[in-house]
């Protein structure tokens, strides 16, 4: 099995396919031809992307089969007004290139106790479901998929799933222009049903809200936000207590990105405010923290003593973190 150096695997871009006008699928293999570390359905990797303005670290769900250790597949949607990572993946990365990729981590795993799995996705949010369904169908799990797309030209991945799994997959917004009705999808489900949602923030919030209205508890609601949780905002300055370094966080970068750009390291995993890995102690604060994560509790937020540098910011004259 291929091993990681400095936390990253060196993977060769074996194949690039355009699957929609905005989405490319990348097939990655170990550059030394050996096996890749195993993963479970719902896992993601972080790709270290070389851009004109430095290295971007973008998280992408693995969509290949968890039972195939010879390759990883990811789908990358080009975001023109983003931070340049996806644009570089589309424009600068070619077949045959070697890219650094972290080993897989799973923040969106299947529930092992569910009696029925309902997947709801929007657009490129369908990618983790590919791997989850491979895992479920091997285990004969009961499932159904509801995928919303913006038109027939964006429906390729949904059609692939329909070919594999038939009527268990519903694609909305393809040629028949049907609409996904989240409340109806969640209504009158048997006990032990779990819902998984991956897509735009509004879709995730709608699913959580509808599920709560119908009496679901959080243990049965699983979600993964693929959008940049918003690490843009007003600039601020942070001081790292251990080195004394003072770092400017510009409007278009996160606290974590600014620290990394200055040559320091913070622990991280999801870079989306979900996993808790980058939780950092706030030692001094003159101002207010702008918490944007899904990790901290209300009490943690109010304490002003912890921050998640991957997404959260501050509006302050002084901020010292224990790093």
């Amino acid at each position: 099995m291929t091993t990681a150096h400095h936390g990253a695997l060196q993977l060769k871009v074996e194949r690039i396919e355009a699957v929609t006008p905005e989405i490319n699928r990348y097939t990655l293999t170990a550059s030394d031809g050996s096996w890749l570390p195993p993963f479970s359905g719902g896992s993601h990797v972080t790709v270290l992307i070389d851009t004109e303005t430095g290295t971007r670290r973008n998280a992408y769900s693995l969509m290949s089969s968890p039972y195939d250790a010879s390759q990883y597949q990811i789908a990358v949607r080009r975001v023109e007004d983003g931070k340049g990572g996806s644009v570089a993946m589309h424009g600068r990365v070619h077949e045959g290139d070697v890219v650094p990729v972290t080993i897989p981590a799973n923040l969106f795993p299947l529930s092992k106790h569910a009696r029925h799995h309902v997947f709801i996705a929007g657009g490129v949010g369908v990618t983790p479901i590919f791997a989850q369904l491979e895992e479920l169908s091997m285990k004969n799990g009961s499932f159904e998929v509801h995928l919303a797309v913006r038109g027939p030209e964006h429906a390729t991945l949904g059609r692939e799933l329909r070919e594999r799994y038939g009527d268990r997959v519903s694609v909305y917004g393809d040629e028949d222009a049907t609409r996904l009705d989240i409340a109806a999808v969640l209504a009158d489900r048997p006990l032990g049903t779990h819902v998984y949602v991956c897509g735009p923030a509004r879709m995730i919030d709608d699913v959580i809200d509808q599920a709560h209205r119908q009496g679901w508890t959080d243990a049965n609601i699983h979600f993964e936000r693929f959008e940049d949780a918003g690490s843009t905002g007003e600039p601020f300055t942070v001081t790292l207590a251990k080195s004394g370094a003072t770092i400017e966080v510009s409007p278009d970068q996160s606290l974590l990105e600014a620290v990394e750009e200055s040559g320091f390291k913070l622990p991280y995993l999801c870079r989306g405010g979900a996993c808790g890995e980058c939780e950092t102690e706030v030692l001094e604060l003159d101002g207010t923290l702008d918490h944007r994560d899904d990790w901290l509790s209300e009490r943690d937020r109010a304490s002003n003593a912890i921050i998640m540098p991957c997404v959260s910011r501050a509006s302050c004259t002084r901020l010292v973190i224990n790093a």
Partner: protein
Amino acid sequence: MLITGIKSRPVYDRLAPMASGLRHLAIAQGSGGQPMLRLLADMTPAQRGVATVVYSSESFTGNSYEAELRAVDGIDLRLCASNVEALQVLDDLLSTAKMGTRLYLAGSEGFIGTAMQRATEYGLDRDEILREHAGSFVRRVWCAHCNAYTENVTQRIFRCPGCGLDLVVRDHYSSRLAAFQGVKADGEVPGELPEIEELDT
């Protein structure tokens, strides 16, 4: 040999209406009728209107709250003569229940544990269930040798009705089996039994 201070024993709740639920399923046995009556009194009329109550009058201590439960207006009450029957009714109700259902359990440890096994099979999560212990702490014991279950065990040493071995009841509660483990009491030296004592029932 025996563990003291039983960490594996479930920490029980106090039954109270779970406001996020759309339907309420409550099952009690014996002394569990008392917390059940309190739960029903704490519910709004609307919650009672979507509540199904299953009550078994089988009881180790002889307490029955059947008459009091009959007197509660506006609930769907199912009365059962035995715990086995009540658990079968629970199973039938769970098989058609929908997401948004909340489950309330009250009674002996063995009864709650067995009901929990059914609930887990149907995929109910801990945050959809409240359980309140009532009555004595008599133990349900699983024999490690013949797989038999014995209800209402009160002594540290007892003879397994399944295989006839003298068992010592260990202080480990298995949530999966909903029982304490019983193992051969004179396994080290045949005929040499540990002291016979009353369990902390």
